[in-house]
């Protein structure tokens, strides 16, 4: 069977400017940050990013890589407002397609099921309909005749997700309490790339957690990357919590200064070394 292991650079080498990228996780939780950092080191730009947004959106927006963002929010959780997303919106630097959280989920479901849309009781009466005038409605063909929003499929050129464990074939496991929507992102995408805290033998997966923790299956995965601490500074329970001190630094440091110190290196290894050095300095 196919060994799908790759480096972050190999993943990014398969992506291109102008693509629609789905990014898993939620807010500042289990984001595939090592893959996002690899994107930042590349020249890839003009992206449409589809995300329950956190610092993935903030970093890519600050670096000017996002043309259009499809999202119901962007937040750092413990810091309510994502500063770089805010700045990008307030300066008009990115186009937003604003969806409600449920509309967004059903858009992913539609894409994963190869449907053009899903009906949703959400959006009607709100200004989501005003700011996304391309949204259509659909009437129930049954006796109730209720009108719904027809959320178009959120089909992705590629998805990036981060899980706790994976094998070389692309089977991946979450060990935290919430799967978020990572399996849906993978199934909604033409290609999906899974980074993980630890690459293990397939037989090890069943020993780490119950069968229902095997969230992502290999048929929906193109590449697997082992990136320990790869969700930093977002949380990756139970392997580690959010790095609150570093997140605060991210949220309060001018972007050029932050990028120069932590993102200018040529590899994920350089980033991890830079954050270790920073933490040493704080002691």
């Amino acid at each position, binding site marked *: 069977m196919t060994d799908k292991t790759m480096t972050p650079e190999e993943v990014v080498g398969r992506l291109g400017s102008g693509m629609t990228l789905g990014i898993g996780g939620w807010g500042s939780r289990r984001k595939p940050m090592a893959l996002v950092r690899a994107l930042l080191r590349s020249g890839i730009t003009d992206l449409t990013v589809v995300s329950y947004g956190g610092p993935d959106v903030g970093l890519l927006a600050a670096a000017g890589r996002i043309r259009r963002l499809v999202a119901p929010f962007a937040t750092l959780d413990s810091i309510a407002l994502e500063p770089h997303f805010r700045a990008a919106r307030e300066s008009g630097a990115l186009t937003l397609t*604003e969806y409600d959280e449920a509309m967004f989920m059903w858009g992913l479901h539609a894409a994963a099921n190869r449907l053009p849309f899903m009906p949703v009781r959400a959006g*009607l*009466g*709100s200004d*989501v309909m005003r700011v996304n005038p391309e949204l259509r409605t659909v009437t129930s063909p049954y006796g109730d005749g209720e009108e719904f929003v027809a959320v178009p499929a959120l089909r992705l050129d590629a998805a990036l997700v981060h899980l706790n464990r994976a094998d070389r074939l692309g089977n991946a496991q979450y060990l935290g309490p919430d799967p*978020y929507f990572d399996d849906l992102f993978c199934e909604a995408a033409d290609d999906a790339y899974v980074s993980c805290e630890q690459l293990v033998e397939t037989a090890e997966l069943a020993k780490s957690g119950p069968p229902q923790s095997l969230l992502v299956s290999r048929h929906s995965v193109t590449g697997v990357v082992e990136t320990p601490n790869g969700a930093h500074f977002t949380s990756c329970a139970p392997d580690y919590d959010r790095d609150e001190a570093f997140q605060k630094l991210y949220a309060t440091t001018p972007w050029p200064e932050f990028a120069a110190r932590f993102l200018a290196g040529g590899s994920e290894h350089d980033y991890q070394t830079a954050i270790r050095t920073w933490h040493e300095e704080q002691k």
Partner: protein
Amino acid sequence: MTAATAATAATRAEYCVIACAEAWRGNGEVLASPMGLIPSFGARLAKRTFSPDLLLTDGEALLVGLDGTPEGWLPYRRHLTMVTGGRRHVMMGASQIDRYGNQNISCIGDWERPTRQLLGVRGAPVNTLNNPVSYWVPRHSPRVFVERVDMVSGVGYDRAEAAGVTRFHRLPRVVSDLGVFDFTGPDHTMRLVSLHPGVTVEQVRAATGFELVVADEVPYTREPGAEELRLIREVIDPRGLRDREVRV
């Protein structure tokens, strides 16, 4: 009122906790989803006293009892099912709210180029069309209670009626640091239900950017019982965090 409670009269923050708790009275076996400190104290007080069947979350992915014992799994995708299934009553925040209960948490100013980008609409559109939605505003001001919100995130009564989506639409109440409000005014407009003790009608009018429906005689928000005050002070919020959210 007993001598013990009279000696330590309820604070404004405690009236707010009581008013928030009352939002979940008689709701039965639904998820109480409080956003913010005072609403979460209110939900806990309601569950400890008059609404014991309420479900609570740990704010992550579990349904938990009052002592934190897990009793169920509630990751985001199942939480969304609870919303659309209607078995939830959320108390959300509001950066802006109008007389019909249209709420905004997305952005201030023109949506195309906002002066202040906030959270985004989050789940407000789906919440308001599917399960009861109440609101909590810790600082009642004309900047929050506005004539017209900049981006309708949560759907108010006029918009729900115009869009024909009233089937499961219900906004039971708004609680602020000044009083309690509902939408039983003409055409489902906001009405002053009760004033927190120490607040006047004039004060509320001055802090509201639209004309409120006010009856000739407005009652005060009910007094907490001695046991309720004890629960708030000794069990639910022994560190007094409530006084940081509402300062009077």
